[in-house]
């Protein structure tokens, strides 16, 4: 990379980091010290505010009445004891929502993201309606929910996630509607909440490995411990990889070109895909300044030749295979093509699934550094990780077949 190209890249990464770090805690009113949980230390913190020894923060006002006082301490005690009747949370687009707990009936409109997180927290049986885009049995490509919870497909379909049928939602009498992050400034969630009178929580599926979605949904669904267990498990698995890959100097990292899911063309670059970075790869398209974390951008074929990646990753549902790319006469001078290092990955399919993302990180680490990860058994590890999240065995084996992933055996 030329020096003058580094500035926009650095700036864009800074913006992304800032955007994500802003969310890196549990945003529930009552989490006064803004760590990952609501506990005794929050009561101590509020005592401090009342005495004037600690500074006032928004989340300390746990009953959301505008003042921080003894009532807030009572509210927190109720949250800790599990006897709270309402909680107030800040959702992932910074909307403040108060809802009644426990939540028994959920309309899950954030597509596969909300279906998956509820399934992984063990509360999928509370889903009463889904968006028409997230029926696991009618989508073309494979998703773990098809194996584990095909019955989700029999639930009432409520239309598009950002423009659902409000009357049908009302007829289901849900306690909560989960909607997807659509874009900065979208008021779809407010409109649905105002018109139905049912609280709407927005989740950002593409938050990669920050797991805020799990903390938030765990809190709302009364599954904080399960959520925390999954988060700890995930971080352990990721740390096992990054322990090794973080020792690798930048100059030794392979240049990786990640082709976005695109039916027929190879000239579509994914700008940000954290599993590549965690696995010790150098995503070659990261120099492109972007605004969205799932951005794909058109580039020219000549750009691929100029980048000369050492590894090419083909995402999910492309119509062409590694063989087709290797047969492309235009790309024959590219290192990845010369050395046959073109592989499929699942990538983000139907949103981002952290469970699959962890498996991908391991899979990519072994592809990038076969010697360093020679005793890593991807089939066994993959099955174990997916089982930890979905509670069913053999999911990785099926996924590897469906997506034509690289097999070492």
């Amino acid at each position, binding site marked *: 990379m030329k020096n003058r190209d580094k500035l926009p890249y650095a700036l864009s990464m800074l913006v992304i980091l800032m955007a994500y770090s802003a969310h890196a805690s549990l945003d529930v009113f009552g989490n006064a010290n803004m760590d990952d949980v609501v506990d005794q230390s929050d009561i101590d913190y509020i005592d401090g505010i009342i005495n004037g020894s600690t500074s006032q923060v928004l989340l300390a006002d746990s009953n959301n009445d505008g003042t921080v006082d003894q009532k807030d301490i009572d509210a927190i005690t109720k949250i800790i004891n599990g006897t709270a009747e309402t909680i107030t949370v800040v959702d992932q687009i910074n909307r403040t929502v108060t809802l009644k707990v426990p939540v028994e009936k959920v309309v899950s409109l954030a597509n596969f993201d909300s279906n998956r997180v509820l399934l992984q927290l063990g509360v999928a049986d509370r889903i009463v309606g889904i968006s028409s*885009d997230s029926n696991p049995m009618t*989508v*073309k490509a494979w998703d773990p929910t098809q194996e584990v919870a095909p019955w989700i497909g029999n639930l009432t379909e409520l239309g*598009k996630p950002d423009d659902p049928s409000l009357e049908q939602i009302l007829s289901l009498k849900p306690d909560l509607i989960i909607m997807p992050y659509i874009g900065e400034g979208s008021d779809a969630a407010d409109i649905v909440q105002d018109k139905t009178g049912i609280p709407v929580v927005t989740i950002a599926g593409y938050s990669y490995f920050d797991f805020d979605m799990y903390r938030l949904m765990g809190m709302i669904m009364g599954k904080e411990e399960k959520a925390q267990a999954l988060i700890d498990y995930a971080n352990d698995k990721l740390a096992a990889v990054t322990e090794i890959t973080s020792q690798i100097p930048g100059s030794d990292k392979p240049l990786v070109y990640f082709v976005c*899911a*695109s*039916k*027929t*063309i190879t*000239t579509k*670059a994914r700008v940000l895909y954290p599993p590549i970075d965690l696995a010790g790869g150098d995503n070659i*398209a990261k*120099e*492109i300044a972007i605004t969205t974390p799932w951005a*794909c*951008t*058109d*580039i*020219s*074929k*000549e*750009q691929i*030749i*100029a980048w000369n990646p050492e590894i090419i990753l083909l995402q999910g*549902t492309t*119509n062409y295979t590694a063989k087709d790319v290797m047969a492309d*006469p*235009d790309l*024959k*001078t590219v290192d990845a093509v010369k050395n046959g290092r073109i592989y499929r990955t699942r990538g983000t399919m139907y949103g981002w699934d952290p469970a699959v993302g962890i498996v991908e990180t391991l899979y990519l680490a072994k592809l990038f550094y076969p010697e360093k990860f020679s005793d890593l058994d991807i089939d066994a590890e993959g099955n174990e990780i997916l089982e930890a999240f979905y509670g069913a065995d053999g999911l990785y084996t099926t996924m590897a077949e469906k997506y034509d992933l690289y097999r070492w055996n």
Partner: protein
Amino acid sequence: MTGPQDDLDTETIDEYDRFVWRKVLFLSLLLFSIGFLVAAAATIGPIALSIEDIYKTILSRFASELFEINETSSIVIWNIRLPRILMGLVAGFGLGIAGAVMQGILRNPLASPYTLGISSGAGFGAALAIIFGAGLVGGEYLIVVNALIFSLLCSMIILGLASRKGATPETLILAGIAMMYFFSACTTLLEFFADPDAVKAVVFWMAGSLAKSTWPKVFLTSLVLVLTVPFLLWRSWDMNVIGSGDDTARSLGINVYRIRLSLMVVVSLITASVVCFTGAIAFVGLVSPHITRMVIGGDNRFVLPASGLLGGLILVASDIVAMNVIAPVVIPIGVMTAFLGVPLFFYLINRRRREYW
């Protein structure tokens, strides 16, 4: 002994000479600019190649023993840059001349491959192929053939209306606009039920792209142009007569109906052969004929070739900008043609001194 009458004659003849000179000058200027732009475009890209390398690479195809070249530059020039540039030129030429003919025979400034629904028809065909993977042929040409069939189907419907007795140019334009809305609605409906990846692919196709240009595609489109353009030029005088009204043309012994029908068939074929490879590139077909007429007047014998050349020029120039303005990201070409074409168009409308239409 010169009277006022003679002065006027000399003046008129002089003015006519200047007018012809102006047309010839405009055509030469276009040819020169195209030559310059194509040569310049071949030197611009993410891989830095010297001008010497580039022309060596090109010449080595004809005399390989004389030049030493490396494989990368050969691939970059022959497989990537040249097909793209030439496809831009050929596609722009096709759209420019098709727009000029449509506007001429329908006597309507709004006629273009886009407003007659032909591009929308092609878009719907492509969307069908992308979303369902279904079509009359499989494999690499699935999308292309589907787009071609639907653009021709769209033209056939309009032509079917045109062949009815009493159909006026206005009916055809209205029918075209109706077709445009109809096929756009069909495409939107498909997108509504398709999965997001396929929708992105359709949106990408609708915006047009020269990225998938290859030599066979360039040759096929060129072949269509080589076969059809002489016919269009041969009929350009008839188009001039039709321009003065159907009744006048008939009184001068022209079979207006037959000429209109045959020309529509030919330009539909040109449009279809372009958009099936490049996607729906907007604006070139509408604006090139207008800019041309503003500069050199309405004589179709000159307007047709000049509008084609201008179309090619606009498309090649737009592609250079689209590829480089925020490199390595490539902006869709259809967006760029509108961004470059609209300001130029507005400028010309504002400074126009006489009625050109």
